[in-house]
Structure formats: C-alpha cells, structure tokens
C-alpha cells in the first residue's frame, strides 16, 4: 500500500515541517507567558495573506506587499492583545481558549463577508510573492524556492529567538515569566512588557508564515491557514505544550509527518491524509500522554 518515500518527498515534507515549526513557536511563545492557546493565530496568518493578495491587486512590488503584510499582522496581534487577551488574562486556560476560538471564527466570518461583498467571489489570488513558488532542480529533485526559503527562515528565526531568550535580559525575563509568572512579577518583571513582547514576536512570526504559506497556495480564501492551524495546535500538544522547544518540535514533526504520509499514500488515497496523520497522533498520545518530547512524566494535576 505504501509507495516508496523518495528524496523529493522528504524535501517537500521538510518545507512543510519548517513552516509548521514556525507556527508552533508563535503559539508556544504566547502560551508560555499567558497560559493562553491562541486559536486565532491562524486568522492572523489569514489576515496577512489577504494583505498580500490585496497588495498584489494594487500592483505593489513584492517588498512593499511583504511590508504591508507585516504591518497588518503585527497591528492585528497588538489589537488582539489589548482587546481580548488583556481582559481575559486572569481567566482559566479553557475560557481563554474558547475566547480565542470565538475570535478566530469572528475574523474568518469578517473575511468571508468582505470577500463576498467587495469581490463577489470566494477568494483573491496573491501574485506578489509568486516568484517564491518557482522551482529549481537540484540533483534530480524539484525544489520550489519557497521550500528553501522556509527552511532557511525557520532556522534563522529559531536561532535569533534562542539568542534573544538566552542572551538578553528581556529574554531571561520571558523565560522566568514562562516558568512561574507570579514569582517573576514579584522579582520585578513587568507583566505587560513580557506579554506584549511575546505577542509581538508571535505576530512577526505569523507575518513570516503568511508570506511563506501564500507563496505555496496563492489563492487566498477566508479559511486560509485554518486547517494548518488545527494540525499545528494538535502537533504542539503532541510535542508538549508546556515548553517552547518541545512545542516547536511537535509542530515540525507533525508537518514533516504530514508531508511524508502524503507522499507515501497512493494517489487515490491522499484524501485520507488528515485521518492517517491524526490517527498517528492518537497512537502517540496513547504511548506518551505527557508529550512526545517530554522526558519526565509530569504530575497529572496542573497546579498553577
């Protein structure tokens, strides 16, 4: 049943894994300081994709379009932090999750409304970043430029983030806040400062992901990135949501696995890709309920 997994397949899987890892970082950063799983993260990416699409329609150059995308996504992240995250900061994680779920659907519905009303159609093509989708052949393997860019960007972004968290004062404060928010505040860490920085960093990453995903699928609809987001959220849980690096690895692994499974499934069975991937997830969770990369089993009771 399984076809041979070849180099081509591995390269594609690597590209997807890199993008999902970036999304997982965005989720994990905010979760670390706020204990908030941001379901609406996918809709930030969607907003960025729409910014790219409309910039393409207005014939902006590639760099102007990408700049616009960053502006929209970062602006929207900060608005989300001020209007939603901040009032809900003291609520339980379940309430915060369902609130961001509401925001996600709200943003998606607004996008649908706008696209239907203004365009009279379901989606908008984004050609501004089309040159990223061009392919080059390396040693018999067809690689789209976006795949190379994704991997490079992911590695660079993770490297910079590691430097920020490990080598700067604010990074130390963020790590402290992620470990024990109350004690960190007692020791003089400004809650608003670390949270705003986490949201800001997550926003920048969302903008990067928006560019990469739009280059892969240039037709932007209101459910853009929705399913990617669901897969990444599950991946983050599989990896272990309590730590940034395990969450990131979880995102990468589920992206990479999706890519490999897609290549391994016979062509007429590829429609079952989500079932196979999520079934694998459940098997993994059965074996390692605390997370795939979590070394010691934490207690089953969450104490905050």
């Amino acid at each position: 049943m399984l076809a041979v997994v070849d180099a081509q397949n591995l390269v594609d899987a690597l590209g997807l894994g890199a993008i999902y890892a970036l999304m997982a970082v965005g989720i994990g950063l905010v979760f670390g300081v706020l204990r908030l799983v941001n379901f609406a993260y996918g809709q930030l990416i969607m907003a960025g994709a729409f910014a790219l699409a409309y910039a393409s329609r207005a014939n902006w150059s590639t760099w102007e379009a990408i700049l616009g995308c960053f502006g929209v996504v970062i602006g929207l992240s900060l608005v989300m932090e001020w209007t939603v995250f901040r009032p809900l900061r003291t609520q339980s994680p379940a309430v915060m999750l369902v609130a961001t779920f509401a925001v996600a659907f709200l943003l998606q519905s607004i996008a649908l409304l706008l696209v239907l009303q203004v365009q009279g159609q379901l989606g908008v093509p984004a050609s501004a970043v089309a040159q990223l989708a061009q392919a080059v052949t390396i040693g018999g393997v067809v690689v789209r430029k976006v795949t190379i860019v994704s991997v490079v960007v992911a590695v660079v972004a993770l490297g910079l983030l590691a430097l920020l968290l490990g080598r700067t004062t604010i990074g130390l404060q963020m790590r402290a806040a992620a470990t024990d928010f109350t004690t960190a505040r007692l020791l003089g860490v400004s809650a608003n400062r670390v949270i705003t920085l986490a949201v800001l960093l997550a926003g920048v990453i969302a903008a990067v992901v928006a560019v990469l995903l739009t280059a892969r699928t240039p037709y932007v609809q209101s459910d853009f990135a929705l399913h990617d987001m669901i897969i990444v959220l599950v991946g983050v849980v599989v990896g272990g949501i309590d730590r940034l690096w395990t969450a990131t690895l979880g995102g990468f692994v589920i992206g990479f696995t999706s890519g490999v499974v897609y290549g391994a499934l016979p062509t007429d069975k590829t429609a079952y890709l989500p079932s196979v991937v999520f079934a694998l997830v459940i098997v993994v969770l059965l074996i390692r309920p605390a997370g795939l990369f979590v070394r010691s089993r934490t207690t089953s009771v969450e104490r905050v």
Partner: protein
Amino acid sequence: MRLLGRPYELLGPAAVVVAVGIVGSFTSNATEIYFETALVSVAIVVALYVFVGNSGVLSFGQLSFAAVGAYVAGIMTVPVDSKTGELPDAFPLLRDHAVGNATSFVLATAIGALYALVAGAALMRLSGLAAGIATLAVLEITHNILHEWTRIGPGAGLLSSISETTGILQATVGALVVMAIAFAYQRSRLGRQLRATREDPAAAQAVGISIHRQRLWAFALSGALSGFAGALYVHEIGSLTADQLYLELTFLSLAMLVVGGLTSLWGAVLGALAISGLDSFLGQAESGVNVGFTLDLPTGTRLVTVGTVMALTLIVKPSGLTGGREFSLGWLTRWRRRAT
C-alpha cells in the same frame, strides 16, 4: 432524596423548553422550523455540556459523535429502494436494511457512546487543556472519513429522503430526554465526583477520585447523548452532508454553551435557545426579512454577529448569562418578600 433535591433546577428549564415547543406548534409551518431548530440545538448543547460543563475541560470533538449518530440514524431510515440509488457503494449491511424511527435513535445513541468511549480512552489521559485540543483530532478524523468514504455513506455528496420525523413534538420530547439524563447525571455520585475534579483536581485526587475515569464516563455519556441529538438533528433536516456537522456547528454549539454559562444545565438550555433564535433570525435577514422595514443583511453577517456576541460575553461576563448557576426561584422569593 439527594437526587431529587431542588427539582426546580430541572423543572424550570424544562418548563421553558415546553413553552418554546407549545408556542412553536401554534405558528405557521414556515416559522415552526425555527422552533424545531432551537429545540434540537438544546439537545446538542446539553449533550456537549454533560462533558464540558461538568469536567471543565473544553472539547471541540463532541460534534463528531453527533455526526456519527446523524449518519447512522439518517442512513438506516432511508427506504431500501432509494438507497440503491443514493448509496450505491455502501456496505450491504447499510444498503440493504432499513429501520424505523425509534430504532434509529437507539442505534445513534449506542454508536455515539461507543465511539466516544474509544476516543475518550485515548484522549482523557491527557491533562485538561491538552485533552481539549486533542479532541480536534477526533473531529478532523470523523469529518475526513465521512467526507471521503463512500462505503459508509454519501461521501462528499448529499444524502436526502431521510424521514423528517422531528416535528415540534419529537424535538421537544428529545430535548427534554437529554436534559433529564444530564440532570440525573450531574446529581449522581459520578457527576458529583467529576464536578469535584473540576473545582480542585488535587483535592479530588486526594479523596480517591480518578480524574481519568470520571472524565471518561462523562465523555462517553456525552457521546451517547450527542449521538441521540444527532439523530434528532438529521430527522429534522431530512438531508445530510459531511460539512453540516463540522467546524461551523462546533463553533455555534460552543458559542451557545459559553453565552449561556458553561457550568450549568440552565446555562446550556438558555444559551442554546437564545443563540439559536438570534442565528435563525439573522439567517432569515440575510435573505431579506420584514421587521417594519425590509432588513436585508449581507451573507455572512450571521456568523460575524454570533462570533461578536460570544467574544463579548467572554470578555464582559465570562461565566455567561446565567453566571454558571442553575435555575433558581430566588428571584421569586425575593419578589414575594418585597410584596408582603
């Protein structure tokens, strides 16, 4: 008796549901459908509440069990003659047999419970938040398989000619049955144990309650009731596609529960009725409705409004309209005291 203490906590919401049913039965056929939808929503949301409300763990997956129930009830009540045309690829067991209305409800309930038990056995071992997110995996698998596999259903197509037995009577009775079981459960020993784990997991474990086991029971019961509610749903609509019971309805049913108040039966009932009413009205308004003047909203306003209401409720009053409390007659005694 503990189980029946404060019976008005059930009778109050039940009276509201019966009132909705009675009012609905006096309206025109075109309007009656909105009342039926509201009552079916009550069943779906109360089924969701049995797990989410009692355990405090969010679940995005409960609609999978409603979907499976709807499929079983729908497919098994389509007459055998029309099935060979509508479901040519289906397994002979599904294609060559048909059952009556009552049996279809039993089947839907059983399959919902079984599916939830299997899925829950895997997922309930996770910690609260992680379990909630992981239920998305169940929803995705269910939707994917129902959408693609033509041996168990219509696949991406539409299954029609399902008997539309859920009129206003069946909808009312169905909602009441689900509510009564939910109430009995939350008053039972098992329900109280689960509620204890919601309030303080560490203390609950210290007195010997197994969080995993209690969550699993509630998950399975919620699955059974969801399957039942799915059957109610499919017999109301009369047709079925995989996309009907997916993210949008998950969002709507969670919105109903949140707006009403996550932690009480009364909240689930009130939220379902309120949001379903709003949703139906806006749905009509999207195709033009006369409310003194002609109100014609653009397509998509419905979800934008419901999303806004849900988000605002969470920000302004996170415990919902009812404050997460059960129906009480406190206001009545206060009023009587003031009168005397």
